[in-house]
């Protein structure tokens, strides 16, 4: 599904030049608003959900909670 979405995105869109990327660089559009907020939220979920982690960050290691 992700591959199909990626392929369709690549073929369907035109390149947006850098001088038209102002809205994309707005703080609310960034993938990470804050490095410390990301860490705190990720830990809240990975320490309490057996299905945490596994996408972009290691899961299962590095914590005595072990789930």
């Amino acid at each position: 599904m992700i591959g199909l979405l990626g392929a369709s995105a690549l073929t369907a869109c035109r390149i947006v030049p850098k001088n038209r990327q102002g809205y994309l660089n707005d703080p609310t559009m960034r993938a990470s608003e804050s490095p410390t907020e990301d860490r705190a939220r990720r830990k809240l979920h990975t320490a309490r959900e057996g299905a945490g982690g596994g996408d972009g960050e290691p899961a299962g290691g590095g914590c005595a909670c072990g789930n």
Partner: protein
Amino acid sequence: MRQLRPAVVAVSAVVALVAVAAAPAPAAAQALEAFEWRTVLFGQGGHGYQSQDGADGEPGSQQAIIVEPLLWARLRQTPTLVHEAAVEVDIVSAASPDAIDATTSASRMNESVALDVTHRWAHDHHGEVQGRWGFHAEEPLRSWFWGAGYVRKLADDNFTLTVNGVISMDWFDSYGPYGDRPGLKQRHAYNGNLSVSQVLSPTTILDAAYGATFQAGLLETTWNAVPMVGGGVAREKFPGTRLRQAATVRVSQHLPRSHTTVKASYRIYHDDFDLDAHTVQLFGYQYVTPWLYARLGYRVHHQDGASFYMDVFPDAPTGYRTSDSDLAPFTAHEVTAKLALLADRAPFAVLGRANLDVVLGHYRRSNDLSITWGALSLGYKF
């Protein structure tokens, strides 16, 4: 292993950050570019069968208060080399008391410290090589990790490809639910990730990511209790390996006329404990002024539980087993609210280039766990 003391944790954290900031380089080229400090206070309530803080055969208390200070900094060593370091401290009142806690309260308060350092080297305007390392220490555990990654931007930065991997090694005291202490054990994890980001329009971004983690070693939380029908508890028992996979898709859309941003993401997870999960997350941002925005968030997570999870097991179970509420089937709902002030955009100059935010949140699981938290953060760009 000895318990960490708050003073030791705090001093270690500061020394680690200073050591990173003082990495050898031409003095004139070094500059602290940004830092961020955040403190989060969590109040947790609820019950789980893995906790022994309750009647025999009944779920025990998971009540805990957690104070979590975090510090992050970015240092530019040369025009192409940047270092980022995050230090995280947790001061936790025991969330799932074990036999030792219940009888002596010796470890009713735990402290942990983690350091996460990333080095980024831009070999040209479109490519970046990353190295990463760090450690985590808490009462029964020491952990180290090392990783590497590569980021490539293509098509006038419209497309970004990121590949990275992390290896982590844990050493821990494997004391059991009756306070027995068989000795030092290990586990290790190998994690690989692939993510892409594609600009779809001047106001739209699509992100997708896939990650897999292979774990091996003693994977269970050794002091977790597994209640038995006839009374008493058995020790948790997991398979020796676990393969976890997750994929995420996210769309971010900015609406210039109303100064609004919306983000929606979906995550699917599967592992070979037969645990499947689906997570949907929505964020809405609204600028009140050009330098102040509010964010509302909602997240729902549903997991169907590990195949060997049961609340209470028949006497003397022999197979894999857990009564850990984190591995049970449940649905979790979370709501958050955030107010962020971007002082570098403000007409007043009192705070310079600072950012301030306050976040409040509430998380509730269907199997009797709830957490309410608040966070306050101050950041600064030099």
